């Protein structure tokens, strides 16, 4: 077992460093697909080094590596985001947006390690571990009662089973994935159709892009979910958004590019999404209220699960003292105390919902998280530090994402016959270690490259920073009530339609939050996959194997490209 932990630790530290860098410069990380990649990489390492890992060692080492890697999204990425927000804050004031980033989020101290901010990020990263404890406590509910698939966990188990005897010619898929992704990273190309479609349907947004990594990932998702993901994305940006723009009488800037258009209407789409989420979350909880009641009743009788849930609550509760500390001795009013309570309850609710989303859709998603942002915004919270501590969407803690990853790992562990609690322990230890490691990585990246370096071009963060500034400053542009109402109406229509036709509601919502070029990719892949599925189970299995190897190749290309940029 020590061997497994050592290898998992080594792999986790390497891939999390590369993911930290990649996340910062491109907003892209392989952290969430590390559920599939980590076991494969370990298998390859094991084969190359002649280690002959047992199945249990492979699973434990994978869980540890994934735990370390997933903290990239919590610490390194958020540290650089808030750092850039702090760096830009004075400049944003000149553009009419006023925000102040506390020292506890970024202290601008010219040292290698920002000790001022460290406890904030580590505490909130550990608060996110509550998602793993909730997932463990309720795993039977989701796996046995709701019969959710958690596709990535299953795919990882299926491929591990087969990979030991894979024929060499399938490795071509790995090479194709590697070189195609490298080409795309080097020569980023996108056919911007926004000026064209917008001239016909004002406000519509569309582009065509090729991302081998997204193609390979989509091939692993359930076909039903994939169809609704693509439908959600394309319908939103080609039909619903133009209708809302017309209803709101918003100006349509002529000849806007794809990126500019996505930025320009990001607040409209966010308002629409929140309206839909509100209805769908309420519907889900209503439909499953009896099942949840039974599950919680059973949970109370089972000691490990009960203790796990309580520990989850305790860890989640850490966000409150952190938020209070970031208020800088302001008096805690009754309204703020109520905000804290409301946010805690919402966090728990959204963990329950997100575990469903991940189980159905496959990929992790932040689709449901803006609900917390809205509640805080409407409660007139205007403190950047409080958002950072409480909000899972613009802030740091994300128990929902950790919970979703934990469920995939639980599925992976069960299918391999390995003790789930042991695997989860490794995952949680990975997060504890990774919180420190990736925080240090974030610090190093900032210390070495700064915020104005060609090696770390942060201009792609500008839309995110501006959007955060708009929300935190309480600008009326953050929320469009009419778009929210349209979202609620659409949500109700979907719920009614679901009674007559089987509609995958949560994958649809995930699609709404994806940009249309990704939605188009999902659409094309869903057509290809529906053909492959009809050709028989054997063809589909081969397609899965090929896709996983291609995905691994793409992941390796991201790693290689990141290293090349760093060295040059």
């Amino acid at each position: 077992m020590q061997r497994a932990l050592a290898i998992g630790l080594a792999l986790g530290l390497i891939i999390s460093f590369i993911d930290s860098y990649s996340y910062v410069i491109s907003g892209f990380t392989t952290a969430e697909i590390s559920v599939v990649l980590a076991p494969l990489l370990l298998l390859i390492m094991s084969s190359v080094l002649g280690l002959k890992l047992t199945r249990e060692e492979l699973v434990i080492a994978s869980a540890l590596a994934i735990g370390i890697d997933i903290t990239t999204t919590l610490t390194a990425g958020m540290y650089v985001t808030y750092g850039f927000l702090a760096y830009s804050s004075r400049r944003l004031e000149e553009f009419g947006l006023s925000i102040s980033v506390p020292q506890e989020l970024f202290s601008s101290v010219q040292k290698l390690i920002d000790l001022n901010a460290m406890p904030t990020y580590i505490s909130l990263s550990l608060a996110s571990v509550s998602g793993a404890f909730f997932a463990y406590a309720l795993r039977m509910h989701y796996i046995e009662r709701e019969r959710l698939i958690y596709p990535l966990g299953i795919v990882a188990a299926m491929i591990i089973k087969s990979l030991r005897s894979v024929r060499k010619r399938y490795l071509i898929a790995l090479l194709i994935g590697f070189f195609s992704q490298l080409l795309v990273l080097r020569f980023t190309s996108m056919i911007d159709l926004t000026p064209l479609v917008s001239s016909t349907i004002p406000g519509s947004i569309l582009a065509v892009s090729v991302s081998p990594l997204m193609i390979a990932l989509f091939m692993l998702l359930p076909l039903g979910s994939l169809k609704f993901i693509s439908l959600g994305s394309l319908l939103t940006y080609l039909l619903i958004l133009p209708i809302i723009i017309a209803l709101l009488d918003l100006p349509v800037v002529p000849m806007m590019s794809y990126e500019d258009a996505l930025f320009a209407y990001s607040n409209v789409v966010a308002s629409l999404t929140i309206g839909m989420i509100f209805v769908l979350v309420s519907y889900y909880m209503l439909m499953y209220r009896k099942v949840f009641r039974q599950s919680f009743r059973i949970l109370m009788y089972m000691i490990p699960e009960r203790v796990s849930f309580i520990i989850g609550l305790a860890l989640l509760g850490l966000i409150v003292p952190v938020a209070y500390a970031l208020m800088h001795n302001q008096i805690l009013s009754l309204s703020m105390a109520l905000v804290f309570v409301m946010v805690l309850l919402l966090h728990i609710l959204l963990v329950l919902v997100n575990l469903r989303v991940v189980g159905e859709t496959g990929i992790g998603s932040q689709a449901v998280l803006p609900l917390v942002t809205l509640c805080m915004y409407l409660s007139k919270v205007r403190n950047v530090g409080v958002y950072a501590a409480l909000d899972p969407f613009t802030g740091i803690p994300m128990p929902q994402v950790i919970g979703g990853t934990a469920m995939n790992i639980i599925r992976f562990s069960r299918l391999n016959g390995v003790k789930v609690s042991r695997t989860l322990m490794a995952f949680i230890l990975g997060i504890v270690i990774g919180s420190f490691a990736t925080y240090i990585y974030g610090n190093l990246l900032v210390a070495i490259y700064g915020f104005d370096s060609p090696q770390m071009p942060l201009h792609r963060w500008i839309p995110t920073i501006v959007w955060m500034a708009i929300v935190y400053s309480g600008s009326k542009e953050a929320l469009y009530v009419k778009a929210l109402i349209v979202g609620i109406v659409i949500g109700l229509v979907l719920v009614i339609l679901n009674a007559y036709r089987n509609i995958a509601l949560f994958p649809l919502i995930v699609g709404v939050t994806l940009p249309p070029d990704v939605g188009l990719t999902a659409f094309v892949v869903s057509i290809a996959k529906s053909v492959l599925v009809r050709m028989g189970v054997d063809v589909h299995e081969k397609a899965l194997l090929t896709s996983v190897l291609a995905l691994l190749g793409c992941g390796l290309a991201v790693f290689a490209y990141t290293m090349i940029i760093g060295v040059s």
Partner: protein
Amino acid sequence: MLLYIAMLIGIVLAIMGAIFIERRGYTEGEEVKLREITYASPSIKIVTVIIRECTNTIAFVIVLTVLITSSLIASLSVNSELLTTVVNLETTPFYSIIAIANDIESVEYMKTTLSSGIIVVQVFKYVDVFIEENNKSYHMLPMLILCRAPSNLPNNLITLCNAVAHGRSVIDRHYHAHTSILIKGIRFRVQSMDLRWITNVEILPGQYIAHTLGVIGSSVIHVKDPKILVILPLDIELLKAICDDYCDLRAIMLDTDKRDIGMVKSMISKFSIVGYTRDRELILMSGIAIPSLQSLVSIVISIITSVLISVAASSGLIEKLRSLSLALMTQGVTSTILRVSLGMGFFTILTLFGLILTMFYTMFMTEIQALAGLVTYFVSSTTLSSVLSYRAMKMKRMAIVNAYPEGVFHTFEGVLEIEKLSNCIKSMFVDDEFFVLNEFERLEVSGNRFLMRIELMYRHAMAVLVSIEIEINRRDSVWIFKLSPEVWSFEEIEKYRIETIAALALSKASGGLRLCLES
């Protein structure tokens, strides 16, 4: 302090919690006996057979010729227009021509193109401006301008142009600077003036003359504080020095001279957006070429014609494939697999030729011609593949199960030992050809009611589980059995396949139960 305490509590809770659940946890019985992937695939073999059969026939050569020819015709006959948008403005703008670009090379071209008006280059990169009078350095955003015959410009802009024309820089009067400033080691004479007006000049919807980041909702995110701006005379070398390796810039040319549309259109190849005004309308054009309506109609006609001719020419091929399909169906290949494999076979071979065609278009045709040709080819190929596979499979479909079996009932009269019965049923699945027994459970609900659950794994898929529930009720000496199946798959499989597997499992369980009851 509070943060450190929270951090420590978090570490302790997370680690202690993890250790606790590890100690109290148990191995959960889900180890599903996943089988390895099979590498033999009938569907792919069928696809390769189709490809081989197609390449051996003259009919297919004719089909290919028709498709490529129609693609070339569509490509060569395409006409394009530039993408144009008409913007209604509230007032007549002061300029007649507007051009927008985002690179330094375009700025050089703007300098040679401008006849009467102003060029404004917004540089989105802060520079250090050392004001010698104040002996202090400030971060400012540079705006470089060039004016030519500015008499038709608004007064504020004329004043600015006059200041900059003599090589001076301009900053806001807040600094009270009148001597000189230093930027990148270059000294500029400086003039302070009231620049509050500059943040309010909107030259077109969503674009101000001062630095504009973009639009969000109904708000334009642009510079609101003129103190941040330093206005400099436009010089390419200065621009390159400011930009250094890289910077974001937006160059806007506003020309007050009227020009003919042809000349305006000729500028499109050099700039991102070009426009001209017509009363209160601004007509914007971009370099994106779109096919004209006639071209679109021509493409559609080409597609329809090529498909019709190809279908007519391929009768011999269809007959050959039809007899092949019939032979395969008698061997057990389903009609769905055959139809899809046929379609995939046609599409694959047509796509291979399509890739060669793509390379040809890329080398010898313009973008719009290539687009028209490739769209025609690939839409025709897809349509043709569907039509041909439908025609090749146009025969009576073999009967397949198309209803999910709800359940089966049995009755038995006599004495029955449940334990003996359950052992017997279990033994029926030990060496089954189609299923592996994963789990068997038996539960006595009451003296007259029992439940059995058989969980089976389907051997011919990687992870398909079938659960058969047997409800047993006794009334006096009569035993009533209800068997109901439930299929659950980790993989994607078609509905009819699920129904078939459910029916198969149910029939085995039902048959096994009857045998056990009789024995």
